[in-house]
């Protein structure tokens, strides 16, 4: 540090970027969300070429590099592929969630890829990979991923 700045107190400038975004969900996610909202049913697109069923839904099969052609019903039950338990109230955690918060990567029966969502109604210490879970739908549904409230263990 050069002599002329010796003893200078470091000033801090606080700021915040506050920019609202409205993401159009697109046809594929919209179809999926409407099904969650109106029918409490989980549906997924399937590749017409390789037959893979994608969760979360997307328009294109990345392996075949073609547009997915049809939609299928997938089960509201599945298997935990991995999980994460937050013990610290990290800033990204939504205000209505208190730690411990558990997230699971859930491979629903009938889907080939796993969906990220909450696990709940379970002690965080007893969550295991391979555990069977079932979707619990939110009472109030608005057409979004949280129309599924969480997944709970299958008794």
């Amino acid at each position, binding site marked *: 540090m050069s002599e002329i700045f010796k003893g200078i107190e470091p000033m801090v400038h606080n700021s915040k970027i506050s920019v609202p975004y409205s993401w159009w969900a697109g046809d594929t996610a919209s179809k999926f969300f409407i099904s969650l909202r109106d029918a409490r049913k989980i549906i997924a697109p399937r590749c017409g070429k390789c037959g893979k069923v994608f969760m979360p839904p997307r328009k294109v099969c990345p392996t075949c590099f073609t547009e997915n052609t049809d939609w299928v019903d997938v089960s509201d039950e599945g298997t935990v592929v991995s999980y994460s338990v937050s013990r610290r109230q990290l800033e*990204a955690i939504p205000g209505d969630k208190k730690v411990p918060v558990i997230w699971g990567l859930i491979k629903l029966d009938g889907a080939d890829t796993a969906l990220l969502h909450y696990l709940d109604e379970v002690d965080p210490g007893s969550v295991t990979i391979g555990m069977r879970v079932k979707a619990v739908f939110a009472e109030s549904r608005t057409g979004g991923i949280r129309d599924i409230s969480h997944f709970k263990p299958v008794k």
Partner: protein
Amino acid sequence: MDRTAIIGVGMTTIEAEKRRETFADMTWEAVNKALSDAGMTIADIDNVVTTSSDFWDGRTISLMAVGDVSGAAEKNVSCVEGDGTYGAFYANARALSGSYKTTLVTGHSKGSQCVSSLITNAAFDPIYERVLGMDMITASAMQANAYMNRTGVKPEDAALVSVKNHGNALKNPMAQLPMNITVDDVMASEMIADPLRKLDCSPVSDGCCAVIIAHESVATKFKQKPIWIRGLAFCTDSFFFGDRDLARSKALTEAAKKAYAMAGIKDPRKEIDLVELYDAFSYQELLWLEEMGLADYGKAAARLKAGEFNLDGALPVNPSGGLLSGHPVIAAGLYRIAEIVLQLRGDAGAHQVKKAKTGLAHGVNGLCGQSHCVWILDKEK
């Protein structure tokens, strides 16, 4: 193919909070150190590649904040996001293109000025995932659980990575967290996201690194001994975690294979002398080593325990202390490259490893190692 080399490196100390330096001030320091290391002036640089992230920096077109102090005025300056290894990859392509001879690459990062959890949450898909509130730590915990479940590796096995790397940092004056700790200390530290405890996680850091890449026609024209780029490659996995096998990293296996092939390396375990890799979390050092073919899958922990990855071991890994000892996210990979360069030149000081002819530097972009960049550097052309 034409050859390229790294002919100068410069880095600032990595600190928790650089209160006296702005992005531009840090960059000024690293750039001048690199120029001085190379024996060059800014007039000898014919183009610039910066590494920054608009989201981390809190401004758009973030490279413009560091252009002036990189000597970019009236030159071709471009920005590549990532951790610096990707910017350097592009810089190397420029040097090979025939249009440029000397490329200055910078990477700057200030974790202290923003909120890592919120920034890394924004890496998740905005329609399907972001609202669930995961971030880099909780995502990595998910990968750690998958890895440990598959391999039988225990949290205390991974904790030894933290012990080793913080210990190595005691010998590196640039490191933020030199610490003499034990596995028990790691296991007693705060549980942030099972199985990751505080000392399994890299800290929030500020720092800037700069390297200069030259075409072979000018690589020996300046003061510094060139370190030759023998092989480099990067490869990316699927975006959604649920599409990947989180317990593995096939993108890294592919990147390493391509880099070894380009370098003419047949047996990496015999031909690589040291490694600087992206250990943002303790388990990652084990997983990345395995996926690069430097240990059998699930077996790196045993070799770590046997001391093989120590500073004086058969394959020193992160002799600098790695990211666990300082993690300026957007510059972190460029620091790995600069560290390997110093080691191969014999200029690493107290953390110099004994045998250092061929080194590997590894960088990551994306959550849970979605994308990997592998560099093979050599003392000899």
